[in-house]
C-alpha cells in the first residue's frame, strides 16, 4: 500500500485534493441551508411589526378631533369662547403637540424604518456578500475541478504518450530479444555439443562467468559456483573453451553489450 503511495504521488495528491474539495463542499452547503433560515425571518418580522405601529400612530389623531362644545352664553360665551378659545388653543396646542408627537412619532418611525431599512440593507448586503462568497467558492471549486480535469487530461495524455513509448520500446526490445534469443540458442547449441558430460554428473551444477570480445572469442572463464566435483568443473571449462569463439550477433545489431559478460549454468539439481 505504501509503495502505491510512493509510486503514485500524483494520484495521492489528486485524491487528497478531491477529498478536500468534497469536504469544503459539505461545509459550504451546510452554511447555505442553515444560515438563511436562521437570519431572514426576523427581518420580515420587524417589517410587519413596524407597519402596524405606523397605521396605529396615523389613526390616533382622528380620534382626538372627535369631542365638540355648545356656544350659548356670551360671557359665558366669551368665557366660553375664551374657554373655547383656550380650549381651542389648548386643542390647537394639543393638536400641535399631537402633531408634533405624530411628527415625532413619524420621525421616530421613519428613523426606525430607516434603521430597519439600513439593517435590511445590511442584511441584504451581508446576504449578497455571502452569496458572493458562495459564488466565489463555487467558482473556485469549478476552477479547481476544471484544473483537476485538465490535470487528468494531461496525465491521460502523458500516460498515452508513455504507453506509446513503451510499446515502441517493447517493439524494439522484442526485436532485440528475438536476436538475443537466437544467439542464446546458437551458443547453447554449440556449448552443449562441446560438453562431454561426465557419467556421474547427476545433481551437479557448475556456473561459470565468461567474458567475450566482440568476435565471440572467450577471453576469460571464472567458475562462480563450483559443482564440488573437479572433473565436472573441468568438463564445463573445456566445453566453453572448445566452443570459443561463440556465435555473437553482428556488430550492427548493437547488442554486444548483452553478451560481453555471460553466465553459463551446467547441469541440473535433479
Amino acid at each position: 500500500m505504501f509503495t502505491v503511495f510512493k509510486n503514485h504521488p500524483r494520484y495521492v495528491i489528486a485524491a487528497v485534493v478531491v477529498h478536500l474539495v468534497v469536504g469544503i463542499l459539505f461545509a459550504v452547503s451546510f452554511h447555505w441551508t442553515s444560515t438563511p433560515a436562521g437570519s431572514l425571518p426576523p427581518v420580515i418580522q420587524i417589517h410587519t411589526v413596524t407597519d402596524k405601529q405606523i397605521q396605529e400612530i396615523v389613526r390616533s389623531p382622528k380620534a382626538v378631533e372627535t369631542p365638540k362644545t355648545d356656544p350659548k352664553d356670551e360671557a359665558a360665551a366669551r368665557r366660553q369662547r375664551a374657554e373655547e378659545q383656550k380650549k381651542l388653543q389648548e386643542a390647537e396646542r394639543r393638536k400641535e403637540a399631537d402633531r408634533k408627537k405624530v411628527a415625532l412619532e413619524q420621525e421616530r418611525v421613519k428613523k426606525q424604518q430607516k434603521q430597519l431599512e439600513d439593517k435590511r440593507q445590511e442584511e441584504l448586503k451581508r446576504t449578497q456578500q455571502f452569496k458572493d462568497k458562495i459564488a466565489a467558492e463555487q467558482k473556485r471549486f469549478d476552477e479547481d475541478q476544471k484544473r483537476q480535469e485538465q490535470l487528468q487530461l494531461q496525465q491521460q495524455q502523458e500516460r498515452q504518450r508513455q504507453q506509446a513509448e513503451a510499446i515502441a520500446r517493447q517493439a524494439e526490445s522484442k526485436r532485440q530479444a528475438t536476436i538475443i534469443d537466437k544467439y542464446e540458442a546458437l551458443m547453447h547449441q554449440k556449448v552443449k555439443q562441446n560438453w562431454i558430460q561426465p557419467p556421474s554428473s547427476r545433481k551437479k551444477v557448475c556456473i561459470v562467468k565468461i567474458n567475450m570480445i566482440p568476435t565471440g572469442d572467450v577471453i576469460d572463464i571464472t567458475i562462480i559456483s563450483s559443482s564440488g566435483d573437479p572433473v565436472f568443473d573441468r568438463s564445463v571449462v573445456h566445453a566453453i573453451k572448445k566452443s570459443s569463439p561463440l556465435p555473437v550477433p553482428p556488430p550492427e545489431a548493437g547488442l554486444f553489450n548483452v553478451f560481453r559478460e555471460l553466465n553459463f549454468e551446467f547441469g541440473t539439481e535433479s
Partner: protein
Amino acid sequence: MNKLLRQSTKFTALLISVLLLVWRPAAATLTIHITEGVEGALPIALVPFAVTGTEKLPVSLTEVIGADLVTTGRFAPLPENDLIERPDESTKVEYSLWRNKRVDYVVVGKIQLLSPDNYSAQFELVDVIKGTRMIGQTFQAKASGLRRVAHLISDQIYEAITGQRGAFDTYLAYVTITKDRRGKSIYRLAVADVDGANEQMIYESTWPIFSPAWSPDATRLAFVVLRAGSPELYIQNVYSKYAQKVAAFQGLNNAPAWSPDGRRMALTLSKDGNAEIYIMAVDSKKLIRITNSYAVETEAAWAADGSALFFTSDRGGKPQIYRVKITDHGSSGPAQRLTFDGDYNARAAVSPDGKHIAMVNGGGEKSRIGVLDMDTEQFTIVTDMDTKLAESPSFAPNGGMIIYETRADDKGVLVVTSADGRVKHRLSLQSGDVRQPAWSPYKRGE
C-alpha cells in the same frame, strides 16, 4: 475510486514491465542453462613414446594405454595417423595445434634402455584445452614389466581425467574350453591382465570348471570342479599354484564367495537336503548354515561391508535375489526379496561400493545383465538388446565396468561394459570358448 484503483494497478503493471524492459541488459547478466551435454568419449592423443638406447621395444606402451582407455568408453584416442606433432615432453606440446584438432588431452613420454633389460619410462599428461600439464611420472621396468607400466600409466591418466581410480592393473580370471585331438573337452582356469595379455593357466581338467572367485587380496581363487556330477570346491593361490580342495560334501559344493575380510567364504552345500547357503571359515573350515528352506538357495555374494549376503532363491516360485543380514552365528532376521523386474533374477554381483547389484535377468529366451541401483531401486539392463545368453557379471574393482560372459558363434565370449551399459568392448583372448569371468580386486602389497 474503484476505477481509478484499477487503472492505477494497470499502470503499475505497465510501469514495471517498462522498467524491466529498460533495465534488462543492465540488471542481470544473461545466463544460459545447459542441463545436458553429449554422451561422448574424451578425445585424447597418445603420442608414441620416444625411444632411446634401443631399436625396438617389446611392446608399444601407447598402444596398450589406448586399448585400456577405449574399453572404458570414456576415451577416444586419436588415430596415430592424425597425430600432428610428436613431442616427447609436455613443454614441447603446441596446445593450439591440438585444440584445432579437437583434442582435449595429449599424452607424451620417453622410454630409455638404461642397461640390458632395464628400461626407464616417463610419461606426462597435458590438458591442451586449459594448457596445463596435469601429471607425469617415471617408472623403471624390465622388458617383461613394460605392459604393466602401460597399465599403471592408464590408471593414472584415467584417474586424473575422470576422478575415478583406474582398474587396468588388475587381473581377470576365466575358464576356457578347448577340444583335444579326440574331441574331448578340456577346461582351463586362466588368469590374464585386463586386456587379455599375459594369460596364465591356473588349473586344468576334463571336468567342467566354473565360478572362479577372487580373494579380496587378489592372490587366491576359489573355484568349482564338477567331478562326475558332484561339484567340489577348491582354493588355489594364483602365485603358488597349489590347489586345495576345501569342500566335497555329498551333493553340491559350489558358488563360492569370499568375505570382504577374506577370512570366510559363503558357499552352497546340499549335504543336508537341498541347496542352502553356508559360511565356511577359510582356515578352520568350520561351517555356519545361513539359509534353511525347501527352495533352492545359492549364488551368495557379500555386501561390501560384510554385514549381509545377497543370494538367489526360488522360494517365491521363481529365482529372485534376496538379502539376509548375517552375524557370527548365522543369519539375522528374515531374508528380504530385492528383485521384482522379470521372473528370473539370479547370481548377484555387488559393486565395490556396495551401491549396485549386477545380476542375470532372464526368463523366456533371453538372459541379460541388469544392474539394480540400491539407492534409487532403479533397474537397468546393461547388455545389448540382442544379447541372449549373458551370464556371470563381475564388477571391476573401481565399479566403473562390468565383465560378463555371452555367446557368439556358439562360443562363450567375454564382454566388458561400462557400468551404465553405454560402451561395450569384446575382450579378445587367444582361447576360443571363454566363460565364467571374474574381475580381480586391486592387487595388494606387491
